């Protein structure tokens, strides 16, 4: 049989991988639970980053790298981030050639907007449906390869497990046909998992309903490491809803949208009647330089604090205003409509108000997982980018843990999906050339048997528990205790709760045992895996006794000194020592500014603590599944630092 690659997932990452492999003449089998064109990536509204510097601001891929690393609090492997940011302009060109209808300037060049965590206009966009437009362009390229016989699609098929030999080496997958529940084995020399994020582990999120995280959980239960699971991005501005949290893109703030609450807690006037003098634009007040465009974790926590801690949410509820009316954003209505029409449509359709006339009402919600399958940067030996710890199994897109460190900057995900996808495609092609050994044939049979038996077990569930109720509880607990603010005692309770939910899982009543397109069966099958995936997320959060990026732990936050008294980190000797150590370890050549002089005692103290914290915690969390225990085994790996030394993350 000629060598083949299996790509699981047809979002941006999966499609990019597929295109690259097919382009190299290698046949690809592409699996997806929905027709790939309906993958979650279509939800992305705001845009995709690349330092093309078309606005003459002096932007550069190296500044993009630096912003990404800084925004992610230096938890990302730097050579990979650098590679991604350097290739970003060429990726935009590629998408442009594919026919993505990017917004244009009067001269016909690509237009760029500003997103959070940077001071540059670096985000290319297509109205407010960028993800959809990128998806469709890639989808059509994949269709072209289908007609050339290089791609075979398995849509409405759900990945169940990897087929591994004793090496262990990857030999294929098992998958279930959603339309008739049959389970089959598919052979391949490499498998790339591009299965997206785990939104449903948090119950309601901004993600699509197909984003269960089950595929990642399945690979994890087979031995693939799950890394940095505790880093979950809570987006500052979704609209709360009964069935999901609908995202209002960061691009609204990029186009001048402003977040505020009334200064008076008991304000009774309609928001549009409240003058600026009675509004507290709290982000602008606290962060005069970045204003409403501070990174997401910062914005989220400020909103959370205003509502939950200060009790200043609108009408006492967990809601704040996001005002993008022409008067407040400084842009005419028609311009706003052209740039943000897609976002406004969502608000009008699902909320019934017009954001051009009335400020929107928003509150933070679970949005993105920085963590995911370890797809690593090897510090010793050969570097196989995007390959997991199981030879021949790759991961790319939101399901991998790379690129964003402790916090993702807006519009960097679509980029990392495409870059990681192309890269994983390339590496898988190289990998299968070297993979000469034949698999012993019984590994297929035994994996199939395992899956069929598991399905039978689920079929026989006829207790008194409701699977949807268990899922609601999981989501509620994860959202309450493992999202914006974490506390150790609550995380312990949450761990116990997860054990309880797992125990109750065995007493579920599967209300439907039919075969044909039985969605309940699929949900219950995935619920098991959601429960399993909650564990590395919670345990990572429990162990990590610090605050970093999206992971904020109560009582473990370094109080940042007042900004005007800061002084320079490079004047702190401990910091210089740390940088020298890192430089030596990674063979890097960091240039620190000359020491200028003494620093204030307050800053000295802060830096002492900061250096200690970096030494202990600036490490990738690796969760390894341990069957028969109630949690993974955690270990820590050094982060590859070859580009810039870490520095305290203080936004002004």
């Amino acid at each position, binding site marked *: 049989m000629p060598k083949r690659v299996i790509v699981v997932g047809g979002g941006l990452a999966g499609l990019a991988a597929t295109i690259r492999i097919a*382009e190299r003449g290698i046949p690809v089998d592409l699996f997806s639970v929905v*027709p790939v064109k309906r993958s979650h990536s279509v939800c992305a509204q705001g845009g995709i980053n690349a330092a093309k510097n078309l606005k003459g601001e002096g932007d550069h891929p190296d500044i993009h790298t630096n912003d990404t690393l800084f925004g992610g609090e230096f938890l990302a492997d730097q050579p990979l981030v650098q590679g991604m940011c350097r290739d970003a302009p060429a990726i935009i060109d590629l998408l442009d050639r594919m026919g993505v*209808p990017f917004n244009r300037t009067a001269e016909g060049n690509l237009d760029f907007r500003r997103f959070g965590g940077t001071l540059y206009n670096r985000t290319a966009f297509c109205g407010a449906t960028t993800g959809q437009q990128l998806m469709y362009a890639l989808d*059509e390229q994949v269709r072209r390869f*289908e007609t050339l016989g290089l791609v075979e699609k398995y849509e409405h098929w759900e990945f169940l497990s990897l087929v591994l030999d004793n090496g262990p080496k990857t030999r294929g997958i098992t998958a279930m046909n959603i339309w008739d529940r049959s389970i089959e084995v598919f052979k391949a020399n490499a498998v790339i998992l591009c299965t997206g994020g785990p939104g449903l582990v948090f119950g309601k999120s901004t993600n699509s309903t197909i984003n269960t995280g089950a595929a990642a959980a399945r690979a994890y239960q087979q031995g693939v490491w799950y890394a940095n699971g505790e880093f979950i991005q809570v987006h500052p501005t979704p609209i709360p809803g*009964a069935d999901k949290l609908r995202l209002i893109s960061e691009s609204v703030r990029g186009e001048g949208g402003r977040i505020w609450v009334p200064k008076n807690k008991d304000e009774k006037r309609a928001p549009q009647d409240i003058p600026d003098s009675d509004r507290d634009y709290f982000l602008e007040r606290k962060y005069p330089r970045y204003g409403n465009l501070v990174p997401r974790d910062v914005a989220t926590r400020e909103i959370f604090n205003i509502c939950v801690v200060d009790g200043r949410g609108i009408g006492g509820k967990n809601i704040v205003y996001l005002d993008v009316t022409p008067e407040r954003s400084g842009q005419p209505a028609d311009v706003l409509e052209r740039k943000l029409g897609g976002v406004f449509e969502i608000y009008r*359709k699902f909320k019934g108000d017009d954001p051009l006339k009335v400020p929107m009402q928003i509150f933070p919600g679970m949005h993105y997982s920085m963590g995911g399958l370890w797809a690593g940067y090897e510090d010793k030996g050969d570097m196989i980018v995007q390959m997991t710890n199981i030879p021949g199994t790759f991961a790319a897109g939101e399901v991998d843990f790379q690129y964003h460190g402790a916090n993702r900057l807006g519009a960097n995900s679509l980029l990392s999906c495409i870059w990681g996808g192309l890269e994983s495609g390339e590496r898988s092609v190289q990998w299968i050339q070297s993979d000469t050994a034949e698999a012993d044939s019984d590994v297929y049979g035994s994996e199939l048997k395992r899956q069929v038996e598991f399905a039978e077990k689920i079929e026989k569930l006829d207790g008194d528990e409701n699977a949807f109720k268990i899922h609601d509880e999981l989501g509620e607990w994860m959202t309450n205790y493992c999202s914006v603010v974490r506390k150790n005692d609550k995380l312990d309770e949450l761990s116990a709760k997860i054990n309880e939910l797992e125990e109750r899982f065995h007493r579920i009543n599967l209300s439907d045992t039919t075969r044909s397109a039985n969605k309940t069966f699929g949900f219950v099958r995935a619920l098991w895996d959601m429960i399993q995936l909650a564990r590395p997320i919670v345990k990572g959060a429990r162990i990590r006794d610090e605050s970093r990026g999206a992971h904020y732990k109560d009582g473990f936050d370094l109080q940042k000194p007042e900004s005007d008294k800061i002084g320079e980190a490079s004047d702190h000797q401990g910091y210089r020592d740390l940088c020298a150590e890192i430089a030596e370890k990674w063979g890097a050549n960091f240039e620190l500014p000359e020491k200028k002089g003494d620093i204030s005692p307050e800053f000295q103290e802060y830096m002492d603590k900061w250096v200690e914290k970096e030494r202990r915690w600036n490490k990738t969390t690796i969760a390894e599944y341990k069957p028969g225990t109630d949690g993974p085994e955690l270990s820590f790996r050094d982060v590859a630092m070859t580009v810039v030394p870490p520095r305290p993350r203080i936004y002004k």
Partner: protein
Amino acid sequence: MPEKITVKIKRQDGPGREPYWQTFEVPYQPNMNVISVLMEIRANPVTADGKKTTPPSWDDACLEEVCGSCSMRVNGVARQSCSALVDQLAQPIVLEPFSKFPVIRDLMIDRSSMFEALKRVKAWNPLDGTYDLGPGPRVDPETQDDMYKYAECMTCGCCLEACPQVNENSPFIGAAAIGQTYLYNQQPIGKALMDERLEAHMGPGGVGDCGNAQNCVRVCPKDIPLTTAIAALGRQLTWYSIKSFFLR
């Protein structure tokens, strides 16, 4: 405020099975959409007359009306059920699967024919490769704006469901693929395949089979100017037939 919502669902246990109707009642909550009603039923699958049944199956994904998954007939109208708000619907709310596609189960249908149609019209740019070949051609904002309208098509199938020309006895390709043909014929790079695309529209099933009922534009959730595309493609085709006649 009503206390409960009454929903009638046309059910079908599998491909080729006989359809049947069931009625459900769900407690009213403000701001509900059809999907959240279905989710309530799924969690407690008991009919209005108290009989336990299987949960209805349906497709959904984004719940923001950008993926096209959850299309069905809601009170007789082809649309996405996620953006169908209960407060705006007459009751009982009647849910049916699309009638122009094979039913997989209940409200789930098989729309693979629409993706096949996109293959037939080669709705893509012929690229040399994914390596760095520099920027694409410049495009003025008006052209971009016009292309963007068509690029929003999510292959949801509403236009086909509403079209009298799309039926079991007709090979008509439908408005969605016509929109995409028109889109890629405008693409500075996609233009290269214009003749092949027009060739695909010659003969049975092509744009010429449009009966001008104009239902497609009325139901398209993305307000895609489909009739403009149909007319424009018709003209391109006429021009192409004349050209090929003289070149023969």
